[in-house]
């Protein structure tokens, strides 16, 4: 306490600024998951995909999922697009404030079991 009193005002300001910066750096981005965009795929698979994303994100702990789009920093749009032999699992991360694209990733799935390694990889390497 005495030490703090002895500090000059400018030093205390710098320390406070550093503390705020550190807290901001440690804060996890809040990510909103809009409803899955489905093209030729039954809604059951959207449920399965979202459940997996929630589980992997909770384990990897890089972001915090929020239920309200207004409170989010980013939004992660998931898409399931039917094609000839399977389904394209598409991920698009956008900034909530201006909807600008941060990254996108698309991977083929030949059956629903493919969702696991795809989501595992994306959660570990891309969802930030």
């Amino acid at each position: 306490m005495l030490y703090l009193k002895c500090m000059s005002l400018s030093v205390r300001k710098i320390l406070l600024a550093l503390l705020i910066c550190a807290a901001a750096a440690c804060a996890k981005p809040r990510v909103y998951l809009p409803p899955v965009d489905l093209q030729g795929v039954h809604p059951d698979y959207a449920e399965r995909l979202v459940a997996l994303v929630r589980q992997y994100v909770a384990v990897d702990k890089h972001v915090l999922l929020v239920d309200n789009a207004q409170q989010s920093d980013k939004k992660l749009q998931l898409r399931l697009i039917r094609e000839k032999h399977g389904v394209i699992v598409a991920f698009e991360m956008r900034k909530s404030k201006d909807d600008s694209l941060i990254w996108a990733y698309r991977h083929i799935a030949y059956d629903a079991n493919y969702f696991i390694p795809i989501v595992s990889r994306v959660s570990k390497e891309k969802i930030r």
Partner: protein
Amino acid sequence: MRMRFLTTAPAMAHLFAFAMLACCAVLNGCATVKVEVDDSREGYAIYCNGKKVCDNSENCEVPVPSGDEMYLEAEKDGVVYGEAVIHRGDGGYTTQTLAPRGTAEIAAKTVGMPLGIAAGAIQPLEYITTTTEYFPAEVMIPVMPPDSAVSAYPWDQPDPSK
């Protein structure tokens, strides 16, 4: 004589260092892995650890990275159709399809997982381990749909595992 030694010793040291660097470059830095896909039509871009290394899978030589893992992906028209993960340093050399380590970890950590998700423990990811300190010289990335995909999965029907 002494003067001559003093002038030649640094030169010898430089020569030795150069030789060592050259050896390292031959054994490590210049080493490449030939990456192919099992689709004769080719035209896949190859990514290694998230970075594009070849625009086309035809004649693709990927420089060996400094780490112990190569995560290779084959992409066409913006869609990843297959990958191969090579890990060096432990296990036996194999090219059979195995569950990736990440999935085993999450299966252990996730409690109360729905049965349909737990049933997906068998993975389609190609996982290769090698006992040597070197990566294999050639890797084939499977990109073709499995035989089971020919009789199309009922994507437009309710999830049977539900």
